[in-house]
C-alpha cells in the first residue's frame, strides 16, 4: 500500500519562472492538502482539494493554484516565482468525511529552490 508520493523531490527554478509539483495520495484517500514549510517553521496551509474542487484556501496569493484529477492525484502550480517561494512543499492526504478530521498522511515533500 503506497503512501503519499510527491514528485520531483528537488527542484531549482529561476525567479519569474513557473513550477508544477505533483502528488499522489495514499490509497483510499480522497482529499489532498498542500503546505509550504519554510526552514525552521511549521507547515503553512496553502489549499485543499476534494472532489476535484478547491474547498479551502490559506493566506497565499493567486500565484499559487492547483488541480485535482479524477484519480484524486493533485498538482500545485506556482507562477512568477519569487525568491521567498523557496521552501519544502508538502502534500498531505486524508479522508474527507466531513465529520471528525482524520489524520493527515504527508509525503516526503518537494524541496523548491528559487535562484
Amino acid at each position: 500500500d503506497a503512501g503519499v508520493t510527491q514528485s520531483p523531490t528537488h527542484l531549482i527554478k529561476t525567479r519569474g519562472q513557473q513550477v508544477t509539483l505533483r502528488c499522489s495520495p495514499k490509497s483510499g484517500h480522497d482529499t489532498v492538502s498542500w503546505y509550504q514549510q519554510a526552514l525552521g517553521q511549521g507547515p503553512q496551509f496553502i489549499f485543499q482539494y476534494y472532489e476535484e474542487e478547491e474547498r479551502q484556501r490559506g493566506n497565499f496569493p493567486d500565484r499559487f493554484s492547483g488541480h485535482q484529477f479524477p484519480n484524486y492525484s493533485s498538482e500545485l502550480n506556482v507562477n512568477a516565482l519569487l525568491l521567498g517561494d523557496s521552501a519544502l512543499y508538502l502534500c498531505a492526504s486524508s479522508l474527507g468525511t466531513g465529520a471528525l478530521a482524520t489524520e493527515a498522511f504527508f509525503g516526503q515533500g518537494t524541496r523548491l529552490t528559487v535562484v
Partner: protein
Amino acid sequence: GQQVMQIPQYQHVQEGEDFTTYCNSSTTLSNIQWYKQRPGGHPVFLIQLVKSGEVKKQKRLTFQFGEAKKNSSLHITATQTTDVGTYFCAEIYNFNKFYFGSGTKLNVKP
C-alpha cells in the same frame, strides 16, 4: 482560522531527561493533533485529542488536552536519541483544515 502557539521553540536535553512541549490557543479548540518531523523528513501523525481533559499515552509519550480545550502538552519521559526531531501540534478546523504550530525542536545529547 485560529492560531496555536508552541513553546519552547528549542529544547536541548541530556539522554534520559524528560521533555515537555506546550501548545496554547486563545480560543477553544475543537480537537488537536500532534506530529513529529525527523530532521530531513516529513511530519508523521502521533495522536489526536478530542475530549476536554483527555490524556493519552504512547509508551514514553504522554499527551494531554486541557480542561478548557485551549491548551495541550506532549511529555516525553526519559528521552532517547531516537526522540530527536521537531514536534508540532496542529489545530483542525473546518473539518479537515490543519493549522500547525511553529513546532518545538528537540535535541537529545547521548
